[in-house]
């Protein structure tokens, strides 16, 4: 059995770990609230943009539209954007995204496609570097340091659209976690380019779409709207991701705190038993020593 001093040190170290995890939980909870508010605030824009695109897309159709809808006519080169957090200690948050992305990459490659990767967040790069290092064309970090700004999403979108237009890839998909609750996040893959049109009938109730007048014209508006839409989708994804990250961390740290509590209880029990055993042993020694005289 371990001696008393070791046990005491052990208990102390678990206690300080518990202090850290419970502090991290508090911080994550506060950040989660902020991230959720940001996601909430960004929703009206995304919703209205979707509505506009739906009504426009219904008129233009997918055949003759701009390249961002119609695609480049091929699907040989795939760009995979993997969005994770910069930091770990948030349960399976990062790994699940990376695993989903990896599965997709394997799938695409066995179908004979070329894959390029753009990582957003340090963990995505760290985890993919070993197996897919040569395919990573760009890595971004420090996106969700405080609160995600639209400008960062816009930068990524510009980068992607530029790459698409210069023929570097044909299809672009983003992997991120959709926030459901602090306990559950859903790994989601969303195709950014060519844009998937929402079903117009569903969006507008099927009645409004023919009534609009367009200035300058449908194509002109779509040409301006689509790049914007890519940025908006990335922005939404990043916000969802940020909220998910903090939610996952909160849950992970909560169970870590609880585990540490259990461990402290167990160790304290062992410590007390050992202490009693030591006292008993000493007493026996004294008594038997006295009797021997």
């Amino acid at each position, binding site marked *: 059995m371990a001696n008393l001093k070791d046990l005491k040190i052990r208990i102390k170290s678990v206690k300080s770990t518990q202090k850290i995890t419970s502090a991290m939980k508090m911080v994550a909870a506060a950040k989660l609230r902020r991230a959720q508010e940001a996601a909430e*605030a960004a929703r009206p824009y995304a919703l*209205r943009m979707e509505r*506009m695109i739906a009504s426009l897309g219904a008129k233009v159709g997918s055949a003759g539209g701009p390249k961002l809808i119609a695609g480049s006519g091929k699907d040989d080169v795939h760009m995979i954007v993997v969005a994770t957090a910069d930091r770990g200690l948030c349960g399976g948050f990062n790994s699940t995204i990376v695993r989903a992305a990896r599965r997709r990459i394997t799938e695409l490659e066995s179908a004979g496609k070329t894959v390029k990767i753009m990582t957003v967040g340090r963990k995505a790069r760290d985890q993919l570097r070993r197996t897919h290092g040569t395919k990573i064309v760009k890595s971004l970090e420090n996106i969700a340091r405080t609160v995600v700004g639209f400008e960062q999403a816009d930068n990524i979108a*510009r980068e992607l659209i*530029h790459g698409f237009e210069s023929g570097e890839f044909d299809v672009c998909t983003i992997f991120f976690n959709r926030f459901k609750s602090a306990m559950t996040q859903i790994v989601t893959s969303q195709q950014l380019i060519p844009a998937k049109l929402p079903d117009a009938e569903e969006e507008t109730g099927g009645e409004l779409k023919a009534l609009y007048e*367009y200035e300058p014209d449908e194509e*002109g508006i779509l040409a301006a709207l689509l790049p914007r839409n890519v940025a908006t989708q990335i922005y939404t994804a990043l916000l969802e991701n940020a909220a998910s990250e903090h939610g996952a961390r909160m849950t992970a740290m909560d169970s870590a705190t609880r585990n540490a509590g259990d461990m402290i209880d167990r160790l304290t029990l062992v410590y007390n038993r050992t202490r009693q055993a030591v006292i008993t042993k000493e007493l026996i020694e004294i008594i038997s020593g006295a009797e021997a005289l």
Partner: protein
Amino acid sequence: MAETTKFELVSPERLVLSRDVEMVVVPGTEGYFGVLPRHAPMISTLSAGVIDIYEGGAVVDRIFVAGGFAEVTETRCTVLAEEAMPLGDVDVAATEKSIADDRDVLKDTTDAVARGKLEDRIRNREAMLAAKRRLAA
């Protein structure tokens, strides 16, 4: 009170403004247009300019937007702005400095994406200044 239109100004980050107005004048790419209640439904792109909000026959609010989109129906007018700022809050000195800084950076930038971004920003800031000066004059 006269008939009103529901006016919403939305930036990517948040809903900036949502209220009932008598008329708004919006900077469309093909010219400013006013939106009154029961306007014909339309969708238009916007260029950088100023949105004027009218109430009681007078301008009550002027907001600068750096481009975006407007969706008008009979009962509402929704503006998706890339950037929105009340014209009163525009700081001329700071904006001038930001333009000058961006120009400096632009000189040494070769990357096409970064250049495009800087050029867009300079153009927006200049439009902002122009709008501010027009108001002052």
